[in-house]
């Protein structure tokens, strides 16, 4: 393994009033890794992701990306340094076309602005837009959403919307992709498709991925390493096989709750 991890979190804590959502969570994500975070509901997984993506500012601790401290970096500056994310509850731009949704992901890569954009043909904005359109079409092709590229995003089915969201996050050329429950609410076939996309993203496109997921089967199958959170504390991290054997994990998370989880997944 390379000595320099992509993402380093040191003693990250966040509290909302009296509730400690995260307590001294530290972990590292190495380049090219597919890193999963698991834990019961309310364990602080999404809060942790929000700290990395900038929605929340940790009350203590630090987060750095590629050696640069990003703890206090504004969320809108994080796209440019290579953090992309999808959301647990769909966060597409509902009235825009799928294509425009994905093109918003190119925002920090595009140069044209409110002065050059209106002069479309004269300012070179047209050529720039077309060049980026071509790139975006690769993503559309990869995720097999060609048929809906002109559809209004809000009218799509759930599984497709998840895919469009992934496409949008991919469009900003992330080094680190944060996926918040990419398979929630999907049927088996859609889950298998999504798992394949995530694997391809990781292996072919070389993107480092941090993923929150409840489906233990998927997590254990495709992750390189897994971290377990419970009540805002890190319980363990390690290889999937190690996590499966961890007594505390079995008790706190996998143990008795497992049948329930499978029911959730089935529903």
């Amino acid at each position, binding site marked *: 393994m390379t000595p320099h991890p992509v993402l380093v979190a040191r003693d990250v804590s966040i509290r909302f009033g009296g509730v400690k959502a995260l307590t001294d969570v530290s972990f590292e994500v190495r380049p090219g890794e597919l890193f999963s975070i698991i834990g019961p509901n309310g364990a602080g997984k999404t809060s942790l992701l929000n700290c990395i*993506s*900038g*929605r929340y500012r940790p009350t203590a601790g630090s987060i750095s990306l590629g050696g640069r401290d990003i703890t206090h970096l504004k*969320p*809108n*500056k*994080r*796209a*440019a340094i290579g953090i*992309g*994310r999808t*959301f647990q509850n769909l*966060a*597409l*731009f*509902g*009235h*825009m*076309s799928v294509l*425009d949704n994905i*093109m*918003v*992901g*190119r*925002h*920090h890569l*595009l*140069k*044209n*602005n*409110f002065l*050059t*954009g*209106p*002069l*479309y043909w004269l300012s070179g*904005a*047209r050529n720039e*837009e*077309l060049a980026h*359109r*071509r790139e975006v*079409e690769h993503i559309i092709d990869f995720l097999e959403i060609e048929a809906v590229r*002109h*559809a*209004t995003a809000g009218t799509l089915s759930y599984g497709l919307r998840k895919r469009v969201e992934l496409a*949008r996050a991919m469009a*900003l050329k992330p080094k680190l992709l944060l996926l918040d429950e990419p398979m929630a609410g999907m049927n088996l076939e859609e889950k298998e498709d999504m798992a394949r996309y995530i694997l391809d993203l990781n292996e072919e496109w070389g993107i480092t991925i941090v993923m929150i997921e409840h489906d233990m089967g998927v997590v254990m199958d495709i992750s390189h390493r897994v971290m377990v959170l419970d009540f805002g504390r890190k319980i363990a991290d390690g290889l999937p096989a190690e996590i499966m054997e961890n007594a505390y994990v079995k008790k706190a998370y996998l143990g008795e709750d497992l049948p329930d989880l499978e029911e959730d997944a089935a529903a």
Partner: protein
Amino acid sequence: MATQAFRPCGDFKSSYAADQTIFPTAWSRNFCILGVVLVAAAPFLVDRYVLSLLIQIGYLGIAALGLNILVGFTGQISIGHAVFFGFGGFASCFLNGKAGIPPILSIPLAGLMTTAVGLVFGIPAARLKGLYLAIATLAAQFILLDFFGRAEWFTGGSNGTVADPVSLFGFKFDHDESFLYVVLFYVVVLYVAAANLMRTRDGRALVAVRDYYLAAEMMGVNLTKYRTLSFGISSFYAGIGGALYAHYLGFMSIEGLDISFSIQFLAMVIIGGLGSIMGTLMGTAFMVLLPQGVNFLARSLDGSAIDHALGLHEGLPFLREMAIGAAIILFLIFEPDGLAHRWKQIKAYWKLYPFSY
């Protein structure tokens, strides 16, 4: 474009360039060009009264487009659009009268000055949303209106101020027949500019801010910048519209710049279709023609039994106001997406003609 374009069966694109055009089909483009040509030919076809209506639709349509960019595309709200319209008018008169800048230059400069003022009043927009923002823009309405009343050096106070007609190489655009071309030029340029804006980076960012600002922020969109920028663009359009108005009338006063004018702008945008560029023009035309329609109706009923029973003669001004109110309510209930959406449905109805199954 924010709304999904309607495409006829069998209309395939073979390049990305052909897929990114402003008009989704050749038909819709030609239809629009035909409209511009017809308006350009209007001085030879219709009388001066119709021309004055066309000019009115033109300059109000420009200002309304600004409001649509703010309200329809960015999801902000403003109930002070009329004062920005007024500021543009006064600014152009000021530049023209006091600084001696010819109207041909003072109109765009007035647009820029209004942009600056709009940006200042747009700063609260970066932090406020919904009702709170509405009240903040209401403050802009009252502050600027008060300023117009007091700043005699700028506006001429209650007497108003005069404006030279637009002239180019000695030719004066001082009649409806000639001024129509000035307005038409600005309408075409500014509407095309808005359409281009909406298919490029910053236009998409504005819509993204409207649809899901948290996700937009994650995509690298600076919310403060775009919310304020939206006010700037909106004011620019309002300023140009107001400047054209001033040079059309040859006179500018604070009369009519009250809050009901601001509400009328909102009505144009809502009736036309929030987030629709062509809809803005339709909505403006509707709002300009509606009082004419009411007048016409009242005149044709003149002297009839209905006239005597309802007293239409005395009630005409009220009737006009009521018609506007009723139109807004009816549109909100039956066609909240505006005339643009209705037009799309009409087109969709004929999509498979004559085999509509």
